[in-house]
């Protein structure tokens, strides 16, 4: 058969910037996720602690409201680093459950259906694919952690005055860093598990197990050896330490009294792993997740 002269013209129109293309992935993922009324309701519930936080901040500065409620300002929790740390940790717990619901199917579904070539046969790299998938969680979790927390920090600054804002700017950075570390860890872990386990339920169970099983094991180590070094394998404890470090509330050595029949038998000083060790372990976990993603997220897994 004859081959005709080339008359077909490829698309030569204007292109959008390369960096923005990954946003196509979260756009569809959000639509998919928020189709579930149950999830939408849960996501709304996640904002209740923030509402409580906002009310507490407001009450601190509203004498009339305190008078109506017949509450003395001293009876309210002080608005300080511990206040924000508490709510950051609380939102972190909600973020974990959101990650548990949203994270596991993100990559798993594409891998199970051999759909990766669909993405990768475009000017779209594996890195962009992973960023696109991770951004689903990063955006969702940011929306319920550091973004509203920083808004509430600004709200408190507005009510308290510019001086308070300047003096406590470090709290804002602690809110931001602690939240970002947590959501980055959640996003990486859930993506790595999602890439490794192709079934959603198993992936969710694996993520849950990864947080709780080492924590239980760590607690056993702590109790057996009268130490706190068992926390080095507990993701929850690691994050708690890092968060405390950022908010300046980290206490490394705590006394532990062993008593019998009301009498003090022994007092032991239990020592938490140093902060740098917690940071290091978190860094290693994140690096391992990235290595796993790099290994698994490929257009083709050749099995012969």
């Amino acid at each position, binding site marked *: *058969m*004859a*081959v*005709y*002269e*080339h*008359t*077909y*013209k*490829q*698309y*030569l*129109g*204007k*292109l*959008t*910037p*390369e960096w923005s*293309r990954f946003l*196509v992935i979260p756009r*569809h993922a959000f*639509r*998919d996720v928020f*189709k579930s009324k149950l999830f939408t309701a849960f996501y709304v519930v996640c904002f209740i602690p923030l509402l409580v936080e906002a009310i507490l901040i407001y009450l601190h500065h509203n004498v009339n409201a305190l008078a109506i409620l017949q509450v003395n300002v001293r009876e309210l929790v002080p608005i300080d680093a511990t206040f924000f740390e508490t709510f950051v940790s609380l939102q972190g717990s909600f973020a974990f459950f959101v990650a548990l619901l949203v994270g596991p199917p993100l990559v798993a*579904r*594409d891998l*199970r*259906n*051999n*759909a990766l*070539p*669909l*993405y*990768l*046969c*475009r*000017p*779209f*790299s594996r890195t962009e694919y992973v960023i696109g998938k991770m951004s689903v969680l990063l955006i969702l979790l940011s929306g319920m952690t550091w973004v509203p927390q920083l808004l509430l920090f600004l709200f408190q600054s507005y009510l308290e005055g510019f001086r308070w804002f300047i003096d406590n700017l470090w709290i804002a950075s602690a809110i931001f860093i602690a939240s970002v570390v947590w959501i980055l860890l959640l996003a990486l872990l859930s993506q790595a598990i999602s890439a490794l386990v192709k079934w959603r339920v198993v992936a969710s169970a694996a993520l849950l197990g990864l947080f709780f099983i080492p924590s239980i094991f760590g607690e056993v180590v702590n109790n057996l050896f009268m130490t706190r070094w068992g926390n080095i394998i507990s993701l929850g404890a690691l994050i708690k330490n890092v968060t405390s470090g950022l908010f300046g509330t980290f206490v490394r050595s705590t006394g532990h009294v062993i008593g019998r029949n009301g009498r003090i038998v022994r007092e032991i000083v239990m020592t938490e792993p140093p902060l740098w060790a917690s940071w290091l372990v978190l860094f290693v976990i994140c690096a391992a997740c990235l290595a796993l993603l790099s290994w698994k997220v490929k*257009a*083709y897994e*050749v099995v*012969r």
Partner: protein
Amino acid sequence: MNESTSQSESGQVPIRNSQSEFRNSEMIVFDDVSKFYGEILGINRVSLHIAPGITSLVGPNGAGKSTLMNLMTGLLRPSRGRITILGIPTDQPEQLFRKLGYCTQFDSFPRGLTGEEFIRSFLLVHGVERRKAKELTQVALERVSLVEAGKRKMAAYSKGMRQRIRLAQAIAHQPEVMILDEPLNGLDPMVRAETIALFRKLAAEGLHLIISSHILHEVDMMSDRVILLNNGYVVAEGNVHGVRDEMQDRPMQILIRCDKPAKLAARVFDKDHVVEARLHDDRLGLFVKTRDSDRFYLMLNSVVAEGEINIESIAPVDDDLSAVYQYLIGSEGSNS
């Protein structure tokens, strides 16, 4: 014609028949390419120059078809050698995928999307602007006759529609090279015929279509050339009839329908190039195996001219892809 449309005034344009008339920047070039998966051979020492038109990859499972396709798309990197697609090395995805469209065998679609949304989304991944993406989506849906169905959710699509929407996503960004993995699977005869017609139209416009298929008679019907692969090696490449002609060790089988096959058998037996003559079961035809089909046809001309035997038809029996496949690859691949 604006810058982004692909409609051609085709048909009335110069023709280039020979592969040698194309420059490397117009062809898909494999230069001594090998791909090993650890110690396992994917393909070995493949050198090809693929000109525009429809090129089919044929071979049994594990022959290296998918490896060859994945190497072309840059989704796999060669262990040795170099591949260029219209002059672009396959390790430059940004430029490569402007020119290349890939229709995989995947059967996964984002949940809740309509056909239109699906194609538009991947155009956005390509970097096409939103307004233009909408326009190109319509063009692609028209090409695969899915304009109406494009508004429906893909979850409700039949297998044939899913196959066509896959094809639409591969052609939507108007590539110059299309790599199609089993594009005819699951299509009913009507849609199959329409799809083949679409391939032929695209090929006529100057596109490269690389198609892998197991349906040999369809490959035979639509392909400008075939690449036969077995155990990671290119066994044969080129036009089917050309490949068949070069298989000198396999005499050509010809069926001659005539009123006196026994007499004809006696005539042909004394020719040195005829190796076998066998009467057809209905005794109204003669199977002849010849090493030199050209000489045999010349001889038949003289038989016809003499008028003693009335010849109704002459047809080569094994001058098709199935026969070439059977001879070169054998029965091991015939079921795949």
